[in-house]
Structure formats: structure tokens, C-alpha cells
């Protein structure tokens, strides 16, 4: 396998990995938003607690996605 094909494959791998990470995070954050909206609809008075917990959980999910993106970037660069 020649060098250029290898590099192209590394780029493709990085891009696909980042895309898959984004899909996972999208599903995760969507679930969090769904759960938060449903619980706000049930208990509107608890909106402040729910909102801050929602942001916190979304940040944790997002962290996993960012790991995927960083690894994808490293696959491209290295």
C-alpha cells in the first residue's frame, strides 16, 4: 500500500470516528433534553434544579464526544 493511500485512510478514519462520536453525543444529549422537558412538564416548579442538572449531564456526554473528536484529530495528524 503506498503512502498516499495510507494517509488518505488515516484522514478518512479520523473523520468517520469524529462523525460517529457526534452521532453518539447527539443521541445522548437528545435523551437528556427529552428527559428534562418531560420532567419540567410534570413539575414546572423544579425547573431550576432540572436545568442545572441537565447542563451538567450534557457536559459529561459532550466530554465523551470531544474525546472522540480529539482522537480523530490525532489519527489525522499523527
Amino acid at each position, binding site marked *: 500500500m503506498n503512502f498516499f493511500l495510507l494517509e488518505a485512510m488515516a484522514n478518512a478514519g479520523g473523520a468517520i470516528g469524529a462523525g460517529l462520536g457526534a452521532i453518539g453525543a447527539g443521541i445522548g444529549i437528545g435523551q437528556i433534553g427529552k428527559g428534562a422537558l418531560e420532567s419540567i412538564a410534570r413539575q414546572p416548579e423544579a425547573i431550576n434544579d432540572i436545568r442545572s442538572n441537565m*447542563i451538567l449531564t450534557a457536559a459529561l456526554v459532550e466530554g465523551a464526544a470531544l474525546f472522540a473528536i480529539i482522537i480523530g484529530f490525532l489519527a489525522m495528524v499523527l
Partner: protein
Amino acid sequence: MRSKSIKSLLVAVFSLGLLILSTQVLAQHPEPKEPAGEPAKKEKIFDANEVIFGHIMDAHEFHFLSYKGSDGQEHHATIPLPVIVYSKGKGFSCFMSSKFHHGEHNHEGYGLLTNEKIDELKLDRNKYAAGHIVAVNEAGLIDESVKVYDLSLTRNVVQMLLALTLLVFILIKVARKYGTGVGVTSAPKGMQNTMETIVNFVNDEVAKPNLGAKSNKYLPYLLTVFLFILINNIVGLIPGTANVTGNIAFTFVLSIISFIVILFSSNKHYWMHIINPPGVPGWVKVILVPVEILGVFTKPFALMIRLFANMVAGHILIICLISLIFIMAALNQYVGWGFSPFSIAFTIFIYFIEVLVAFLQAFIFTILTAVFIGQAIEGAHDDHAHAAAH
């Protein structure tokens, strides 16, 4: 029926638009082959990669714009910054980065690498990068044997110090105002309103729910982190400034400090839950304990990566949208003009999101630090609740 016809019309319009715009667009255009022996005038092509990384990375100057003067030479509008370099033979050297003339000249035996220079000398991209300072010999060639330690006040450092000065100035001013009695018994005035909102927010939303009775002990640290990240995020959003919070070294130091605070506030129960989790079967511990020990380190690592990646992604997104105009213009000048309103509208939209992200990331860093400290100082009463449940 009517919505169906509108739908099919939309499909037709979008397919037409895609058909028109579906031309091969490359971020990096291949250099046109020049006939040998004839040093043709090089037309400078727009290189999105260089623009993006020139914005994201650290540099030895604040670079605002480049333009072609009436003399045909390219001029740069920059603010030079001090360069401090150390190498074994020569000791410390200190001079302004303007002495390099944007990489064209060498000074005191040092030279600044640029992308053009790396391409011209065919240097190894893994070893050398644009913006690095290298030692050069009398002939003007790169001296690889000399190791150069670069301690310069780069634009990230200078901007961080400026932001810090601004923050300290605001805080001292507000504190003095409280000293004179304004805002203590009466309503707060001016900047006091902003600071009071922020302090109340961090106290009520971040410190109290996670740290409980001990929140007053950790509140100064949490407020410092929050305000420091916030001011750097916001100053970094001003066009022309550096991307301080999108620098891995910056977030690394912040997360290391958080890590130390978490470790120093940890108690016996925290370590017991890691090394010997109560109420867990022995063979599960074989898996659980290594994971828990790894978790101690992944928490600050995630803090570091989250802030870094969020800020870098935001800045790249903005500059990509602006670069799109020039990529389109390389295709055809009129396409570039036609595309720019959309591009600018999108940029403004993303810019407002970035302002939100600036607050959000400061908040997330602070609240996660508070949550981790809260886990570390948690008392034994939780164990009894677990035991009762089993």
C-alpha cells in the same frame, strides 16, 4: 395538496442549488506548475488551513491584517511582542519580535520559521512548525545542534495578563465601592450589579448544592476559576485577539490546580470507596478498583479537554465560515460576493452562540470542579444509607 406542491418546489430549488454549487472545491489548491527556468511571479492563493491555524495557534505577534501596498510589497499590520530565548552557548537574548520582520530576517543568531520557509527549505513538518524560533549560523542556515528554549511573552501570555489586569481592576473597583458603603445597605450601583449577580449565581447554583456546609471554604477558589475562564473566553472572542482558553497548556494548568484542590480536600471515605469499595463482591473489585483509580485521573483530564476542545471548535467554526467566502471567491468572484451575506449571517449567529458557550464553559468547569470536590469531602453517612438499602 398545497403543502405537497410547495415541498416538491423546495426539493427542485435545493437540487438546482446543489447542482450549481457542486463544483470541486479544495481547501488547499495545488500549486500551478511553473515552467522551468522562468521564475514566474507567484500569485498568492488563499490557504484556509494556514488562516485557521494561524488564528488558533500561539504567535509572537498580534496579527491583524496583511495588505499589498502601493509599492507592490506585502505589508502586515501587527503588534510586535517581546521575544525571550535561551540557548546554551549564547545565554538569554531579549528583543522585540518585529526584528524578525515576519520571518524574513534573522536576529542575534535566531530565526523565525514561517510556512513559506518550511516549504522552501523542505523541512520536516513533524519537527518544525511555523512560529517556532530556531538557531541559525552565520550563513543563515538552520543550526540543528543548538537547542533553543523559547520563554517569550507570546500573544496568549500577553492577552492573559491583560485580561487578568482588567479583571483585577474591575474587582478592586467594586470592592472599594462596597467599602464606602454603597450597596451594603442600599441597592448596588453600576458594576456592582454584574458582580453581585455572578457571585450570587456561583454561590447559589454551584457551591451550595454541591458542597453544602463547607461551601464557604471553597467559594473563593470556585469564583476565581469562574471569573478567570469567563474573562479569558470573552476577551478571546474580540476579533483580532488570541485564543487563550483554546490553548491546551492553559486548560492543563487549570485542571492540574483543580486536581490538587480535589486531592487535598479528599477524606478517608473517598479513598476507601476507590481502593476497597464497601458492599461489592471480591471478584467485581478486580475490575472496579482499576476503573476507580483511573477515574481519579480522567476527571481532571476531561476538564482539560472539554474547555480546550469547546473553545477551539468554536473559533474554528467562525473562521471556517468566513474562509468559505474566499474559497468560493477562488471558484468565481461573483459566487464569492453572492455567498458572503449568507456566510456573514451564519457567522453572526455562531458568534452569539459562542458568547453563550463562553459563559457555559466557565460554568461547567466550575460546577464540575465543585461536584468532584463534593465527592471527595462526602462524609460517611452515605454508606449507612447504602447498607440499609441492601
